[in-house]
């Protein structure tokens, strides 16, 4: 009985879990449903992938846009002013630098005039004039001269002006000369055109008017640099004058001797004449030197350089060989610079975007981990 009950129970239980009738093919419905979901998911994943890639690309582009212009700005287009005058110092140089110069400045001075002498501080403005070493006798003579009120100083000045209208400033500078006082323009040069016009003048102005001329030049433009020097040559002049007096005295004595000894032997007369000639020659030389110094002292020399505000590089015309060489050099240098800029830009993008790419990778891994953590069938 119990076995029959068990068997009947087993049969009925089995019947409870038996599907009667046709199968509803629910697996097809599931496939269709998951097919749509997976298509959406794939599209969503594609969308997410494109979103992240676009985001990473946008971030990299922003970093690139920031990094590259800053590099380019550092290599600014404003180039160093290269004056068309060889070796001239930059307007930013201080007067002392100008003075140190640039050998080219000295050479320019030499080109302008051969009368430049070693520098010393400008006496009345910068301080006391410095005495040359080892010239105690001359110092005495100079002192004597100063005491007598005679002081001989060779004055010179160099000035750099920036003017919007270089040509007008140049013309005005020429008008400052007073020919009645023996002043003149020793040298003038105008080079370039338009915004690249440069001008330079070497003015010889009366020493007494030097300050006045310098002040007038200040008004022609913006003063960029100025250098004024003065060398006290009083001692030299006094010495010259003393030696000249001596030589003249010797000449006079020799003439008197020659007159008194007309009946002297010929040999003596010739010797006297020879000595007299030598003295005369020395006198002439010293007179010339004295006059030269006198001219330097009486007329100060002013070198004025006038340039436009934002000067661009003007290459002076050079020979074809130099031009060809310079062009090749510029092309090679430019190519190298471009290569460096390109490489640095790539590096900026890679390195700058690396952080974001790492973050993106971390996010993707986290999302995948979350998705994978779904248990199958609830188990």
């Amino acid at each position, binding site marked *: 009985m119990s076995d029959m009950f068990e068997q009947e129970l087993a049969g009925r*239980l089995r019947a409870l879990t038996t599907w009667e009738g046709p199968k509803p093919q629910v697996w097809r419905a599931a496939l269709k449903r998951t097919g749509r979901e997976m298509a959406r998911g794939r599209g969503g994943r594609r969308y997410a992938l494109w979103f992240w890639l676009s985001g990473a690309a946008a971030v990299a582009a922003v970093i690139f846009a920031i990094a590259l212009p800053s590099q380019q700005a550092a290599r600014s287009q404003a180039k160093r002013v290269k004056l068309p005058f060889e070796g001239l110092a930059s307007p930013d140089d201080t007067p002392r630098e100008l003075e140190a110069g640039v050998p080219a400045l000295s050479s320019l001075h030499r080109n302008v005039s051969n009368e430049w002498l070693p520098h010393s501080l400008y006496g009345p403005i910068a301080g006391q004039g410095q005495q040359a070493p080892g010239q105690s006798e001359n110092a005495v003579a100079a002192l004597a001269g100063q005491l007598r009120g005679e002081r001989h100083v060779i004055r010179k000045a160099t000035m750099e002006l920036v003017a919007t209208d270089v040509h007008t400033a140049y013309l005005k500078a020429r008008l400052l000369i007073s020919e009645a006082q023996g002043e003149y323009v020793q040298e003038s040069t105008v080079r370039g055109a338009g915004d690249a016009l440069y001008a330079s003048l070497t003015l010889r102005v009366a020493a007494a008017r030097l300050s006045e001329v310098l002040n007038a030049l200040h008004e022609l433009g913006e003063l960029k640099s100025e250098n004024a020097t003065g060398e006290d040559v009083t001692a030299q002049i006094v010495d010259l004058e003393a030696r000249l007096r001596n030589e003249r005295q010797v000449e006079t004595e020799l003439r008197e001797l020659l007159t008194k000894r007309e009946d002297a032997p010929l040999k003596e007369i010739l010797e006297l004449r020879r000595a007299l000639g030598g003295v005369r020659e020395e006198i002439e030389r010293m007179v010339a030197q004295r006059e030269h110094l006198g001219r330097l002292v009486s007329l100060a020399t002013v070198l004025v350089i006038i340039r436009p505000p934002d000067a661009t590089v003007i290459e002076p015309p050079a020979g074809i060989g130099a031009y060809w060489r310079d062009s090749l050099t510029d092309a090679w240098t430019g190519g190298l610079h471009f290569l460096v800029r390109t490489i640095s830009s790539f590096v900026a993008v890679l390195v700058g975007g690396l952080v974001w790419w790492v973050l993106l990778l971390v996010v993707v891994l986290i999302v995948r981990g979350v998705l994978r953590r779904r248990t199958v069938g609830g188990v």
Partner: protein
Amino acid sequence: MPAERSDEQLLADFAGGRSAALGELARRYERALLGLAAGLLGGRRELACDAVQEAWVRVIRFAGRFRGESRFKTWMYRIVINQCRTLLDNERALADGVGGSPAGASGEDCPGFTEQSRDPGPAPAGAAHAAKRESDEGETEDALRRAVAALPEERRAIILLCYHEGLTHPEAAEVLQIPPGTLKSRLHAALGELRELLGKEAPA
């Protein structure tokens, strides 16, 4: 004649893009799974279809991630059981919220049960005995469903799995992830309880 591919091979084929492989798996197991689901859900066929469909959805989604730690058959049955459990939990929660006993707990209001076990049309005069017999059988089956539904969830699953035509006892143990010895002892206990429940309703 090509050798029949195993369930795991078919699953791998489906993961590789062959939809027909899923059809073969459905041909092998869908009817049995529907029957089990119907039994777990008190004979409600529509719910059983939903549960099995949901199970197929999960198989499709995670086909590529099947690690082969268990057999596909037991894996599939496990999914179906969990889906049925989820449906019953949702139903119970909904009934608790609305008030009243969850529908279909006794199987009386179950459309599936009605469809399966009740005869709406009038019986011909010559089949009165047959109708009475069917009615008696229906009442017996109804009583059995009520008794099974009254069992605790774990024992109910054990009984239905062990008496399910598509599973052997070792496979049932594998589905439930318990040792076969444990399954045997629990089955014995479940049958005893079921007998008690049936004894209250069974004719003397």
